[in-house]
């Protein structure tokens, strides 16, 4: 399947169908990206579903997801392409004598000897893909500059081969934790989406979607507590994924309510630093002692 969505609502419904509940702005930007062939730059704190968005888009559009995880020191050889030196060497040795230099040279710089890394494989794929460039802010500025050609024209230049244009238009999602300012040039080529922690009702819907067996009262109390915990000054505030994990943990334990005892036992699912645990235990433990509202 590869028909483009016709309206924002259609895309929003599609994302919902694959288990991702988009906010209205998320659905709108994703729709624009698909329609305009523009990359999306998603920024926001850790764990608000930036990466999930790309995955959900891929599964909704029925496309393969090609993922490039960025890190400090990532270079072209690992992101774009690399020559398969061993194979080239073997080729030269197998040729023994008698072959002219120019033939061998033409030969060993062919596509056969090219190792495609994520970016190259994304644009040379036969059917269009979703390309996820995760945590772009972890790389250095030089790498960003290298991406520009890919992002605006969907093409890559390989000196020995020439220009490789995309055979299909990928949907590109870049994510960033905003740990450094990205260059203007990169931002200019992208649509911008800022994702924040979801509103209470929205997160409740997400938790209920992923843990439908959990009683509504418990789920509501769970997201209320998570929201409270996020307000504290923690090293790592709990993400949406962790609320879902917590809901599942409560299900496994068969908890009917989050009382102070259950909270103390399962707190480590959402809080993962020793100092954070102390703060949360002191500040939230009491609030959890009140029984959940029953209606």
């Amino acid at each position: 399947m590869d028909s483009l969505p016709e309206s924002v609502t259609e895309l929003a419904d599609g994302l919902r169908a694959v288990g991702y509940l988009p906010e209205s702005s998320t659905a709108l930007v994703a729709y624009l990206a698909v329609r305009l062939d523009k990359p999306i730059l998603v920024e926001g704190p850790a764990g608000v579903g930036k990466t999930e968005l790309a995955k959900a888009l891929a599964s909704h559009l029925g496309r393969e997801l090609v993922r490039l995880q960025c890190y400090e020191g990532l270079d072209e050889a690992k992101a774009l392409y690399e020559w398969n030196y061993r194979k080239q060497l073997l080729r030269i040795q197998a040729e023994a004598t008698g072959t002219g230099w120019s033939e061998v040279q033409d030969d060993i710089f062919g596509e056969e000897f090219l190792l495609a890394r994520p970016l190259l494989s994304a644009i040379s794929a036969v059917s269009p893909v979703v390309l996820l460039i995760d945590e772009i802010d972890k790389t250095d500025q030089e790498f960003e500059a290298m991406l520009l050609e890919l992002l605006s024209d969907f093409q890559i230049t390989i000196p020995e081969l020439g220009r490789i244009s995309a055979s299909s238009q990928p949907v590109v999602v870049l994510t960033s934790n905003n740990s450094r300012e990205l260059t203007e040039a990169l931002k200019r080529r992208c649509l911008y989406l800022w994702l924040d922690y979801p509103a209470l009702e929205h997160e409740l819907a997400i938790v209920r979607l992923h843990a439908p067996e959990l009683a509504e009262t418990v789920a509501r109390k769970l997201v209320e507590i998570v929201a409270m915990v996020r307000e504290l000054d923690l090293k790592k505030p709990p993400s949406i994924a962790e609320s879902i994990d917590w809901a599942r943990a409560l299900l496994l334990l068969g908890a009917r309510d989050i009382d102070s005892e259950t909270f103390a036992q399962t707190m480590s699912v959402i809080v993962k630093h020793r100092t954070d645990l102390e703060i949360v235990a002191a500040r939230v433990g009491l609030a959890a002692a009140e029984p959940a509202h029953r209606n």
Partner: protein
Amino acid sequence: MSTGKAATLDAGVLALAHELRAEGVRVGTAELLDAFAALAEVGWREREDFRGALAATLAKSPEDRRVFDLVFERFFFTAVEAAALREGVREWDGAVEGPADGRAEPLDLEELRAQIAAALADFDEARMRDLARLAVAALARNGAAGAGVVGIDVQRIRRALALRSDPQPEREESDPRHAGLPKEALRRFEEMLRRELERAQIERTGTLPPTRPLGELDRALPSGPAADLAAVHRVVAQLRRRLATQGGELRGAQRRQSIDIRRTMRASLQTGGVPIVIRQRRRRPRRPELYVLCDVSTSVTSASVFFLSVLDALHDSFRRVRSFVFIERVSEVSDIFARERSFAAVSQAISRDAGVADISGYTDYGRVWSEFRAMVEDDLDPRANVIVLGDARTNGRDPRAAEFAALAARARRTLWLNPEPRLYWDYGDSVISAYARYCEVFECWTTRQLEEFVKSLTSAAAR
């Protein structure tokens, strides 16, 4: 949609972009083209889609997004009003307006109150909007409002309508005011009142209010001593990461390096004595010593504590940082940073310990210079940097600029950060210009200015 309409819409978007630029958002032609392409894809009759499409293409950072939201509100509000003025539309010819003498009540006030309370309790936006218009019409002419200042009028109308969020037990059970009105709805209603009053003002005067630039204060440093420690902490953490990732790239003349003869010769041994690989001398960053003096009197505490913790977070970039705080007298707090790990604890310890030496609680800059000189005179290295953070408000006391000059003469650089906007400098008891002759003065009251300052400090250190 006729072409004429399309042209006005395009012009409107261009004008919006112009206002955004005026507020410091970088909107280029590429962004504008994207915006138009995006608007072609979404129904621009839907306000939220229209706004979302523009936001995604024009405002590309969290700060820009905040500015965008404010400008968008302001822009499209005035755009509607301007169009109404041009077309000569008048709205207040209806029956709601009181008789010409302005004395008589066109409406039963108690009835209006009950209706508004019910609408607020249901959070019915459309009804709230109508009632807000009615309330302004009813009250604006009979003295309940009419101060001419929108903010004051809003509060007067709200009082006249007896809208409160706290419970009013004297009411009947069924009355929504019995349990108190929801805060959120009340806030929204006030916003609508404000909107209506502004509209009325435009109606009366026939001109648009001048567009003010958004207050820089919307983007100011986190203020309020302990109000938002988490926010402060986040800013510090981010600043630290940002500064850590940059500075490596040196440009232009700075890039020039000198050849390390010894290592080049050694490398040439591999190539038979021909120096093919040139080795360059490594650039060793010079890490300066810092003396930081911070005013912690109530007017500037938050900026000071914030600044101190930024420097502490960056302590690896400096050889040694000694921090002092002062109000009337000076005391050293370097060890607090060594001892306390969390920002909250540091802030508490500073406000506790720094207060010890104070009698009146008023800053005395003159005395601080003498004491500070006596404290560090023997230690003060000629390569050390002295940074002062304060508003230079002496409360009318002798600034003793000569003492400060002597201090500045001993240090390599003396820098002054003033957490007040430049507009207020030398106004009232501020004597910043008396000191400005002996040091470099920086305006520093937004995180961006602070970031720029720290950046220049660390990059100057690398030279």
